């Protein structure tokens, strides 16, 4: 499919986007007041063709509201918005042909029908040409290893199988943009790995633009060259993942198990945060190398075991929110 983009060449263009909700709050049995809740405000960003963007933030930060505006489900209160050169809420049906959307927590497949039948109906709904439908189906079913499951009713599929089915369903019409909402939630480690591998391939071979919301740091690290962090309805960070760590002042942790109990370890480049019997926790900047610290500890102490904990993205993000 030829890609459509707005005047400045961006596939997704969001400028000064606002969305407020009116919430009625009961004050007494019969009276209520209307509160304006701001879900998204002053949100500006753009996404280019072929990018893989992680869209993250705590619950209630405005992630879902943004995705719903980008896909035409919600009408923005104010601001401008263009996806694939279209106004999502006004040109929803046209936009739908350019988008694939996968919700990790619910399925868009038909519960009582075999996967094969759900896919067949989608071909009719999207009016994909039979040849392209067949080719895409064959390719994705192969890549996601769904061949044996095509005749199984969706209700009998496991979560991981159903998720793969949902992803095929979202891709059969060759969308240029794929939105994924918590795509790996509830999946086991192997399924997660497979899914990430598949998404990378999709992006590399078809230049499909990916935007995913997730709480899983590994999803972001495995897939996203770029992260947008949203809090209280506005973007607080937009850039490469590596910069997020620097900006968030994030740290990695070296866990040291000594042979015997000892006072707090003191080595250059790291700070001892915690001592618990023979075990000690040392933290050091995420962008620094662990090697010299490990060497220094091993040289000065009798070490039984060592391990390194990667920074928790939630902590990094929390750090950013607090500034």
């Amino acid at each position, binding site marked *: 499919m030829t890609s459509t983009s707005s005047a400045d060449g961006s596939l997704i263009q969001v400028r000064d986007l606002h969305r407020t909700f009116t919430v009625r709050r009961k004050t007494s049995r019969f009276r209520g007041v209307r509160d304006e809740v701001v879900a998204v405000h002053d949100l500006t960003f753009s996404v280019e063709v072929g990018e893989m963007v992680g869209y993250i933030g705590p619950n209630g930060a405005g992630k879902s509201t943004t995705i719903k505006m980008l896909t035409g489900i919600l009408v923005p209160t104010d601001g401008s918005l263009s996806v694939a050169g279209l106004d999502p809420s006004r040109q929803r049906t046209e936009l739908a042909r350019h988008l694939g*959307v996968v919700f990790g927590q619910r399925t868009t497949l*038909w519960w009582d029908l075999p996967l094969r039948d759900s896919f067949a109906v989608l071909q009719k709904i999207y009016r994909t040409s039979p040849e392209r439908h067949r080719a895409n189906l064959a390719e994705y079913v192969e890549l996601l290893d769904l061949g044996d499951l095509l005749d199984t009713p969706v209700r009998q599929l496991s979560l991981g199988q159903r998720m793969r089915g949902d992803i095929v369903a979202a891709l059969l019409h060759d969308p240029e943009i794929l939105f994924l909402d918590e795509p790996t939630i509830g999946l086991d480690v192997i399924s997660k790995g497979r899914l990430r591998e598949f998404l990378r391939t999709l992006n590399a071979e078809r230049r499909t633009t990916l935007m995913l919301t997730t709480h899983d740091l590994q999803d972001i690290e495995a897939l996203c060259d770029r992260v947008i962090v949203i809090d209280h309805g506005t973007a607080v960070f937009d850039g490469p993942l590596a910069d997020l760590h620097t900006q968030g002042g994030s740290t990695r942790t070296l866990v040291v198990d000594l042979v015997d109990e000892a006072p707090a370890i003191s080595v250059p480049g790291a700070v001892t945060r915690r001592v618990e019997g023979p075990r000690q926790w040392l933290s050091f900047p995420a962008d620094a190398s662990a090697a010299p610290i490990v060497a220094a500890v091993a040289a000065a102490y009798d070490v039984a075991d060592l391990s390194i904990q990667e920074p928790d993205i939630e902590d990094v993000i929390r750090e950013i929110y607090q500034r």
Partner: protein
Amino acid sequence: MAETLAGAAAANVRAYRDIGLMWTRAAMAYPASFWMMAFSGFVVGGLDFVGIWIMFHTVDSLGEWNLREIAFLYGASGFGLAFADMLVGRVERLGDLIRTGRLDAMFLKPLPLLLQVCADEFALRRLSRILQSVVVLGVACTFVAWSPVKVLVTLSMIASSSVIYLAIFVAFACIQFWTIDANEVANAFTYGGNAVTQYPLSIYPREVVTGLTLVVPLAFVNWYPALYVIGKPDPYGFPDWLRFASPLAAVVLMALALLVWRTGVRHYTSTGS
């Protein structure tokens, strides 16, 4: 432009058919349930008329209408309701679709939202209710002294009755865009409206008939065209042209319903996540 519009309409009809077929196939995964529901739909609908029939063992006429004439009213209203119910009845579950997030998923498909909502869980077994109304109407028609105009008026009555019920289903379901738990309101006007129009409106006070003409125009579902086809004077002396106005009422009501739907969709606020 007209051609692309017709093309789009045809594509939508095909999409509705494809989705409907798929739900029918899904329902056929449980064939016993399908046939039982279809059969009970036919019987329950039929019992309704049996009730009226039994009543006529003690009375000769109701509001100066005899049983055969009332069968005409009953069949016309019943057909409209059953037909609309089969095509768009699921719209009354709009609140559920909102709550479960399934409406959000429908926003993501390249089809009109209303079409998807109505085609959702399409139930072919409702055909049995239509069939039951057709039987009653068919029998009633054998007692009519036909003329070409009467045939036209009857055909337009059947079409208008369906469209009016379609519009009422849609318009009142839209309340659920604002308050999710309001599907009973629609029922009052669809099934309730059918219960009212099964009888000649001459049994109701003038104010009720005025309301059914001007406010919720259910009188156009069967009453006015039946006055013409059966050849009765209007007991309230309303103008004669109303007898031919059912298609107009249907078109106006449908336009209003679509307007309310559009407003509802733009007002839609989705759910939490």
